[in-house]
């Protein structure tokens, strides 16, 4: 177990280094000048050059890279080129919003997706199965921002149950009001995804000999399905859920925009539009870390559900 964690940590450092280098290169290869964007379109070339010096962008690329790596090693994330705020502070100020939304929509996805998938598998090729398959396919193909607008229109404008600006905090009621619609919008998509994976994993397990044996020796169907079969089908479901969590963190930008919620997605799109190099670099570290952590947690979960999996 310890050896496993150490090995993964070592791999994570290498991944991080590679990502950092890649991001450093990519943002500088992109056309677009942060100084121009900060000063606006009435600034003269001279004023822009002056800002380059201030931001250190006049230095040769290898020098910038060396400084960047040195800072990164010391854990110095730098300050945003646009706002002048420390990158870490900017990230931390919106991070809770992203974590909230990711966890709640993931929970929704699992709570809806797993039972639906199991149900469809058990009733294979019957009405329920067809219905679940069609609806989940629709859910997958439906862009989150369209469902978001429809949800807002129905529940915020027509029924007035929820606010349009879903960014309230301070009390449990405010929090619930703000997170419900965005989480449903994102959660529907992940539910569709998880339903489909659960269904196919369950179908495979249900055709195994031990399931037939269990049923033959008279174990109640409920126990066979939920304890024997589902437990064995969990590995692919966990894999997919883990992978999906990483995508959720990255893909929530449209949901954040439509529901006017702060979040990492908006932060990174804004940084990209503004060519905020330091911010982009800092964000990439966070994303890489998030993916690495989610992957490690997924691996640990395997060991939890399947005693045969030995981490080491």
């Amino acid at each position, binding site marked *: 177990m310890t050896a496993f964690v150490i090995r993964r940590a070592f791999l994570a450092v290498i991944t991080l280094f590679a990502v950092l280098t890649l991001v450093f290169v990519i943002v500088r290869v992109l*056309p*677009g000048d942060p100084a121009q964007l900060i000063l606006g379109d*009435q600034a003269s*070339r001279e*004023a822009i050059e002056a800002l380059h010096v201030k931001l250190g962008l006049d230095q040769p690329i290898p020098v910038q890279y060396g400084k960047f790596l040195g800072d990164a090693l010391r854990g110095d994330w730098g300050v945003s080129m646009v706002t002048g705020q420390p990158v870490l502070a900017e990230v931390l100020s919106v991070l809770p919003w992203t974590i909230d939304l990711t966890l709640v929509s993931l929970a929704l996805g699992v709570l809806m997706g797993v039972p639906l998938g199991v149900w469809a598998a058990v009733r294979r090729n019957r009405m329920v199965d067809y219905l679940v398959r069609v609806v989940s396919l629709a859910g997958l193909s439906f862009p989150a921002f369209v469902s978001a607008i429809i949800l807002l229109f129905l529940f915020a404008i027509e029924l007035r149950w929820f606010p349009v*600006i879903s960014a309230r905090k301070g009390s449990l009621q405010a929090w619930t009001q703000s997170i419900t619609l965005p989480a449903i919008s994102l959660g529907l998509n992940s539910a569709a995804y998880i339903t489909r994976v659960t269904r196919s994993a369950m179908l495979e397990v249900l055709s195994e000999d031990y399931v037939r044996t269990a049923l033959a020796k008279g174990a109640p169907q409920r126990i066979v399905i939920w304890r024997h079969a589902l437990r064995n089908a969990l590995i692919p479901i966990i894999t997919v859920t883990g992978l999906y969590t990483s995508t959720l963190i990255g893909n929530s930008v449209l949901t954040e*925009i439509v529901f006017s919620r*702060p979040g990492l997605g*908006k932060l990174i799109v804004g940084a990209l539009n503004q*060519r905020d190099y330091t911010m982009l670099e800092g964000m990439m570290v966070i994303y890489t870390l998030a993916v690495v952590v989610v992957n490690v947690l997924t691996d640990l979960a395997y060991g939890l559900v399947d005693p045969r999996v030995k981490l080491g």
Partner: protein
Amino acid sequence: MRNTLLAGLVVAALFVAGEAQAQKKTLTIGMGSADAGKLDPHIASTTPDKGLLQYIFNGLVRVKPGQISPDTIEPDLAESWESNPGGTEWTFHIRHGLQCHWGYGEFTAEDAAYSIKRAANKATSSYSNDFSSVVNAEAVEPYTLKITLKNPVAGFLGYVANINGGNMVCKKAAEEMGDGFSKKPIGTGPFMFAEYQPQQYVRLVANKQYFRGAPMLDEIMYRYIPSDSSRDLAFQSDELDMIYGKQDQSWVDRTKQIPGVKVLAMEPGELSTLFLNITQKPFDDIRVREAIAYGIDRKAIVAFKGAESSREAVSVVPSGYLGTDEHAALFPYDPAKAKALLKEAGYPDGLTIKTIHTTLTGMQTFIEAVQGQLKKIGVNLDIQLVEHATYHAQIRKDLSPVVHYQAARFPVADVYLTQFYDSASIVGTPKGVTNFSHCNVADDEIRAARLETDPVKQKELWKTAQDKIIKAVCGIPVYEQLQLWAWKDNLDLGYDLKGSLNLAPPVTEKTHFTN
């Protein structure tokens, strides 16, 4: 039991009713951007940032709220002013007892002098070019500011008005905070910066010591809502009282349907111009440039963009500026002549020209309409779409022979002419700003007009400059896009809104809700 319940309900109902009757004191504005930028008035260049900062800052003088014409300039922090006959020495008499926000002390001529110097310094200001003629700004007495200029400057008061570098910052706060000033901007205006929540809002509170009197509103919530549809929906659900509109006619038509709502297409218009690089093939041949000018149908573009939210260009400078030639001889739409000119220039079968263009929706629909029009004269406009930051970088490197640019530089023609048509502003050069066409035909007139003290002669010079630029087809002005806003009609702005130099409606001490 039932009685208790009933009594409870009655009390609750009374409570709710009482709350509803209380005067609404918070104005919530929905702005179309994802987040705040640098909230420093001498740096901010975007509509969302300028719109917000105008509530916090004053100028020495101001354009009357709701107006944009320099003719309406009136006292702001300075109660009076005078200049020497040559227009090179300006004296401003600062009001007594002005207070900087959050206890930063009295605003005096010392602060005003500091502010002008800060705006003129390219290390601390995006607008240093506007103050290149300023030799000195000093407080000769506690309430007397003297500004000395190298040469007279056309419409000088416009530069010390409540916009861009003219915004007056408090010296103590700016010096103490340095770069941090943009995180807590300190001015003298009717509202004070109170709180910033990233990607959500900036909250301003009333400045009870405001020299024109305490504002009737308690608070402004300035919310960042980048999605046009979300802004519209939040406006409909009464979460927003005023919104920045989606900048097209269909939005105007749709929003007008909502009961209790005012919709306004506000001045100033942003002029859409096609700049042709006169140093590059095929535009080094004036016949090709003329052909393009003849090939553009301004009327059709306005019909396409919407009659209420846009209007035809009148000259290479937007209409309504001091010095605009409102009846300039722009090229008429004449496709036959365009084709003939192309043939004469050696392109009987037409030609393909390239433009690098931004993906901003409003601008993109325009260039596609232009593409359709040019097809009729045999010109194939190859539009290469890139995202906005890339567009800004590439058009400044002469990579796009045709540059479509949209801009307002109110209120004096000089700024527009200087930035877009003076050869000193050619992109890539040290003083370069936005002269994409490499135009150099009207340098003499533009520069002479800048120094001319006789207003009549000055206007003549500007008119000649515009004529020359139009004839040389450095740029083809097409249409002006107005600023679209909507607000609830229980909001009384306290003045008559025609336009705003800062591109968002002013909120003054008199702005309030009526019930």
